């Protein structure tokens, strides 16, 4: 089922009466989610990603705009008629019911011709439980399960009625780091096995990048960029997106374009023949630095952190907007940690320049 969001907007009246006006939680969201894809809604807290999810589920009514499931306009349908499966951040498993009862709960709501026999419900519940690999825990209460198992029960409960769209609200944030890694693979697997169009919300860019077919980066209620994870990472549309994606984060410098070259301080680090002279923000990905004694960038070396596969060089530069610059290079490259200065040259496709005022990307080519 493809999902289309058309100028979707949700405004709330401002709580602070003196300021008045409305607060835009989601503004003018346009996106056609292709059928059967896994979409990550990504952004810092308060950016409107959960509101968007609730708008799609129908728990919140939009101020304006439309939502389509396939060819059906569902904007004014109540949540129960939309056929969405929703997994809550805290799972919202009914604590007084067993796993089995939790999973069959949505099926027992069916009425009329859709009504199922007890046996069919049990079978369907078992099938869903098997899909998320909790079929051996059917008689337990949620309190007797680990966080990861509860998460799976919640997913099984959302899947059991074969939803047209599966919505996951911060599905991994209550799990520890290791489980998170495992569960996100699991979500990917389940999504691919069922082929259900899935939208999940997260503030963790790594999570979104690793399993999504497409990511939507949001800020202050507005979509910043939509695209395949790698595309968005390689080709951020503005400084916010560039900074939000990537761990360690992109290194940002004050600089300028002058005579067709990009300057950080007095050092020309890249060419930009078509760009007018102006002040810039310059972003360089950590992996974009090459230690090079003849390179244009000179930095004060602070320390070298060896992390096995990679080496992380931490250094300082006056033009940097952060306190330190972190560059990641292959551990094959030896950097003498006792020296006081390190010089870099920069990979041209790992450097992005942005207008100093608007923070919009300026394309070098």
């Amino acid at each position, binding site marked *: 089922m493809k999902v289309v969001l058309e100028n979707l907007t949700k405004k709330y009246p401002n709580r602070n009466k003196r300021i008045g006006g409305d607060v835009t939680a989601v503004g003018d969201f346009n996106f056609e989610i292709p059928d059967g894809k896994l979409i990550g809604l990504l952004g810092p807290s308060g950016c409107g990603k959960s509101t968007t999810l609730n708008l799609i*589920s*129908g*728990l919140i009514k939009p101020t304006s705009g439309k939502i389509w499931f396939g060819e059906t306009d569902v904007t004014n349908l*109540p*949540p*129960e*008629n*939309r056929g*969405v*499966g*929703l997994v*809550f951040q*805290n799972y*919202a498993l*009914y*604590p*007084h*019911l067993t796993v089995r009862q939790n999973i069959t*709960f*949505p099926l*027992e*709501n*069916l009425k009329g011709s859709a009504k199922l026999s007890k046996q069919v419900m049990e079978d369907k519940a078992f099938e869903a439980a098997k899909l998320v690999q909790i079929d051996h825990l059917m008689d337990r209460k949620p309190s007797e399960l680990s966080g990861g198992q509860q998460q799976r029960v919640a997913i099984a*409960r959302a899947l059991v*009625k074969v939803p047209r769209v599966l919505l996951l609200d911060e599905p991994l944030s209550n799990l520890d780091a290791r489980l998170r890694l495992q569960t996100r693979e699991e979500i990917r697997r389940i999504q691919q096995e069922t082929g259900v169009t899935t939208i999940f919300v997260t503030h963790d860019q790594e999570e979104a990048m690793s399993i999504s077919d497409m990511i939507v980066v949001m800020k202050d209620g507005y979509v910043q960029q939509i695209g395949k994870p790698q595309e968005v990472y390689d080709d951020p549309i503005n400084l916010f997106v560039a900074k939000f994606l990537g761990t360690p984060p992109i290194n940002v410098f004050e600089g300028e374009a002058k005579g067709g070259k990009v300057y950080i301080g007095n050092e020309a680090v890249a060419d930009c023949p078509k760009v007018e002279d102006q002040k810039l923000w310059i972003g360089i990905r950590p992996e974009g630095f090459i230690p090079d004694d003849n390179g244009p960038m000179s930095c004060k070396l602070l320390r070298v952190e060896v992390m096995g596969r990679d080496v992380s060089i931490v250094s300082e530069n006056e033009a940097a907007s952060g306190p330190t610059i972190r560059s990641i290079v292959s551990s094959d490259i030896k950097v003498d940690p006792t020296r006081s200065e390190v010089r870099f040259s920069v990979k041209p496709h790992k450097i992005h320049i942005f207008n100093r005022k608007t923070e919009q990307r300026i394309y070098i080519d």
Partner: protein
Amino acid sequence: MENKSLKGWLYLLPALLFLGVFMVYPLIDVFIYSVEEGYNSASQTFYGYGAYNFSYVLHDTYFLQAIRNTFLLVVITVPISTGIALLLAIALTSIEKFRNLYQTIFFLPYVTNTLAIGLVFMILFKKTAYSDGMINMLIMAVGGHAIDFIDGPYAAKMFVLCFYTIWVVLPFKILILTSSLASVNQDYYNAARVDGTSKWRIFTKITLPMISPSIFYLIITGFIGAFKAYSDVVALFGTDLNAAGMNTIVGYVYDMLYGDSGGYPSYAAAAALILFVIVLTITVINMLVRRKHVYI
């Protein structure tokens, strides 16, 4: 370790001391009184030990009347008041306008003096030389016959007592249930809504189990409170409850101690112990029921 537990006992000492003096010692004393036969409070003498006091009390028609009244009061008021409180609490949580106003109104009986409320009920129900009481005026207005609620037939008196008791205990129950309802995580309701759960099913399958600990608490305290009913009855029917046929177990105990026919601490102690056994039994039954039906 030894030192630590000593310290612990030291900190507990004041509480233990007061509990011992004002709770444990009187309890033991009541038990001793109850088995001392022919105790004379003036001379502080008695004939011997035995179960005669219990036998006397259990054969006393006034006590049997008191037990009947108390049980009726418990059986009628606890379920009805809890049910009404639940309905009102749900209504309160589902409205937005004037919620605080209504909450205040419902809470007023809780902060009003028992005797003042008793007076109001007199005005509502009592038949005097000058007036039949407001309720009777209403009954007559719709063509009925005036009933003497305070000095009239037993059923009428019982009705007033139950009405009064329910009205008095409602605020506390509403308060507990509204806060309990508010503490149910909204996500459960959202999850149920997304799954197309009907309102009735949400109520029976989610809301009720979630607030069942509070309901259970209210039922237990309601039972215990109703078994201990006394001051309300006095406020309505005066101090000579035996004559009015409206005595309660606690009222009987009081009368045996200080009433006009009083001065029998042994009978009072026996009656008090019987009440204790009844309340204990019912609480234990409640606990057993709870284990089966209350989600925790």
